[in-house]
């Protein structure tokens, strides 16, 4: 198949950037989207042109590195699919495809399709953990956890931190990301102990990083490659409310 790519190029954070058009010939429909970009890049290199910079690593949908807005939708809009697992058979011959980076104030641009998502790391550093150090913990079976709770916690814990939720949100809110971690840990007895401190600190850091407010449109849930549910945001709001009530501040 043959395709036209309209790809965002931007030399560095200071550059203003813009779309560049590339014609791609003889694309194998079994290729993944990133493999298609690899082929484009090899062509560019041979022509002495710097290849298109984009993040990727595991290429099996779990590391959360890849971060392309494809045809206006984060990861391209296929259910539970990251860009690296999107295959070209999902596109039509002759199609024009636009490729852009995540765009959000809290995710500053680096180059081309690469942005800086370290704000997510700082939110986790603010409280997205259980404060146990190595050693001295009870036997793993000492505290039973209801399967339903554990399953729900796992639903939330699956978040790969890709940032698609932010990219998809008209407010560039990080609520789904924060909600996933707060819910994961609040659902398990191990994490309940410091649930209030955690919710307060993570929300405060989220605000500091400049993410927008949540207006519950559900666009985050729609693009999430791990199908993190919107109701975790409701849980985060409850956790946060509970924490405010018990601890004040906020």
């Amino acid at each position, binding site marked *: 198949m043959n395709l036209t790519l309209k790809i965002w190029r931007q030399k560095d954070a200071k550059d203003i950037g813009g779309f560049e058009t590339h014609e791609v010939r003889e694309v*194998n429909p079994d290729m993944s989207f990133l493999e298609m970009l690899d082929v484009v890049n090899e062509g560019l290199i041979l022509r002495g042109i710097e290849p298109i910079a984009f993040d990727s690593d595991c290429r*099996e949908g779990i*590391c959360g590195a890849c971060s392309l807005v494809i045809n206006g939708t984060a990861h391209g809009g296929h259910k539970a699919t990251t860009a690296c697992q999107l295959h070209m058979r999902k596109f039509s011959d002759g199609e024009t495809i636009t490729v852009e980076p995540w765009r959000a104030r809290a995710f500053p641009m*680096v180059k081309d399709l690469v942005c800086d998502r370290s704000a997510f*790391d700082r939110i*986790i550093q603010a409280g997205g953990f259980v404060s146990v150090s*190595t050693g001295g913990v009870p036997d793993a*079976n000492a505290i039973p956890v209801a399967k339903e709770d554990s399953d729900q916690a796992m639903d939330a814990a699956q978040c790969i931190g890709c940032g698609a939720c932010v990219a998809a949100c008209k407010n560039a809110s990080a609520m789904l990301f924060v909600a996933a971690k707060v819910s994961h840990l609040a659902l398990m007895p191990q994490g309940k102990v410091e649930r209030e401190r955690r919710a307060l600190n993570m929300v405060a850091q989220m605000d500091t990083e400049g993410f927008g407010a949540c207006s519950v449109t559900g666009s985050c849930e729609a693009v999430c490659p791990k199908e993190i549910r919107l109701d975790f945001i409701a849980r985060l709001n409850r956790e946060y409310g509970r924490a405010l009530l018990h601890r004040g501040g906020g």
Partner: protein
Amino acid sequence: MKLDAHIPSGPLTQKWDQHRFDMKLVNPANKRKFDVIVVGAGLAGASAAASLAELGYNVKCFCFQDSPRRAHSIAAQGGINAAKNYKNDGDSVHRLFYDTVKGGDFRAREANVHRLAQVSVSIIDQCVAQGVPFAREYGGLLDNRSFGGAQVSRTFYARGQTGQQLLLGAYQALSRQIGLGRVEMYPRTEMLELVVVDGHAKGIVVRDLINGVVTSHAADAVVLATGGYGNVFFLSTNAKGCNVTATYRAHKMGATFANPCYTQIHPTCIPVSGDHQSKLTLMSESLRNDGRVWVPKRKEDCGKTPASIPDSDRDYYLERKYPSFGNLAPRDIASRAAKEVCDEGRGVGPGSLGVYLDFADAIARLTEPVVRERYGNLFDMYERITGENAYQQPMRIYPAVHYTMGGLWVDYNLMSNLPGLFVLGEANFSDHGANRLGASALMQGLADGYFILPYTIGHYFASQKQTRITTDHPEFKKAQETVSARTRRLLAVKGKRTATSIHRELGKLMWEHCGMARSKESLTAALQKIPALREEFWSNVRVTGENGSLNQDLEYAGRVADFLEFGELLCLDALTREESCGGHFRVEHQEAGECKRDDAHFSHVAAWEYQGEGKSPTRHIEPLTFDEVHLATRSYK
């Protein structure tokens, strides 16, 4: 050079406890006076960095990804072993030890493996305390499943994303320390040189991948937890970024590289579909718990739809050849068996390089919803990649490079022959011998980082007269200059081939000459072709852009350059090891299609010492003795 493994004396079961007692300690108040560099933020690196910071050491942690949460440990699907015997089905520390020694085809150190089995139980406790949502039974206790190469159910799991959840646990512990200011984290930063002063590892030189700035970092110890070298084969289940650079450059500074020829080919990967492919995708080994592996009995049937082939015309070859383990035979055995039937012309799918992994019986026995609950995410992944629905037709699978048992040589304390240089996880060679059992990689990574290094590093600090080195030391300048020169050289070639095309050529060469089967002939040929390809690289590669900004082409070219040297070492090791064992199958050494070890001549670790460019490396050996486990032909029949 004498390789002393420093294995403690005394009975096997008491070595670790005794050693922990005998090791010297660093006073709590003095720990803050020691700086530790940790390179890599996967399971081993993140758990080590977090644990060392908790103890009070000053830690700097480096990773090339944009966040420590992305290391490829995250992709491990199946689970993590631990000798908890929660299932009352016969497990014990001794059995996990025994299985691992046997599974490694008697090419691992008994003392290391026994410690690993002991420590395994603490790992599960630790991860649960961190909030890792392991699978549970309805009663609230932890669930287990069985895994390839084991006859007990000792594998803890979190759906098909165990590696993810364990890594996030370690990442969160690390994040806590970063938040507390106890770890300084350097993402998007690549280690390019190890700095050795007076024989001790004293720091590293790194490149900031965003702006190309090269800086030096001094420390009292350097910990490498930089993963394996599977990408020397270009196609593997590793992440695109996985590379041998950190360990290989340490090797060039004097660290011996042990058993590079021990590579693991995983039997259940999605087969190659074309030339464009950038990586292979693993389907979790757990699928073999319920899926049945088969090919047609007759070549003529290979083109037929699988449903049209009656049971009597199918060859469930693993069940036939290994009745007691059946579809759960260890990885090396299952991989070779797949190669064998494909070599006989009975493979299925494109290129006839595939075998069926069939869930029809499991669906009949358990119902589709149950199969969906167990493996749904894997079936979905299979469908995304292949476009096929595995509930309705069998999956097709084929072996692919997955893990590398070789790595930098370390002693019992996980310290390399360069004092102060510690190596953890897949980056070292220590615990898996010539073949790793399923669900043991996560175990080893976390054992090293949470429960071993935190003890042994203190002993190193407390035993040495510490000399404080700063980055002003000439060795740092020298290393920085090496980095700059290499970068300039890469950018200067301006040839006609991409680094990718040369890497792909190297990978194909490695797979064909040193893959599932190796021979004197194929290895000798490889040892001629690799230097030529390396020559081609340095004379004809095209690296675009410049050093002063994000330049993924430059990063990659540097890694390919190392693979082009390392591949030669791997083949040399394979040629020298004149026996078959585990993942290393020399066609000259077999008995009825199975590995034939030569314990008389090769019951040892081979550790290679770099001698300089263009010179042959020196092969050192560390003899392996087996006091607890009787050396025997490894049989899974």
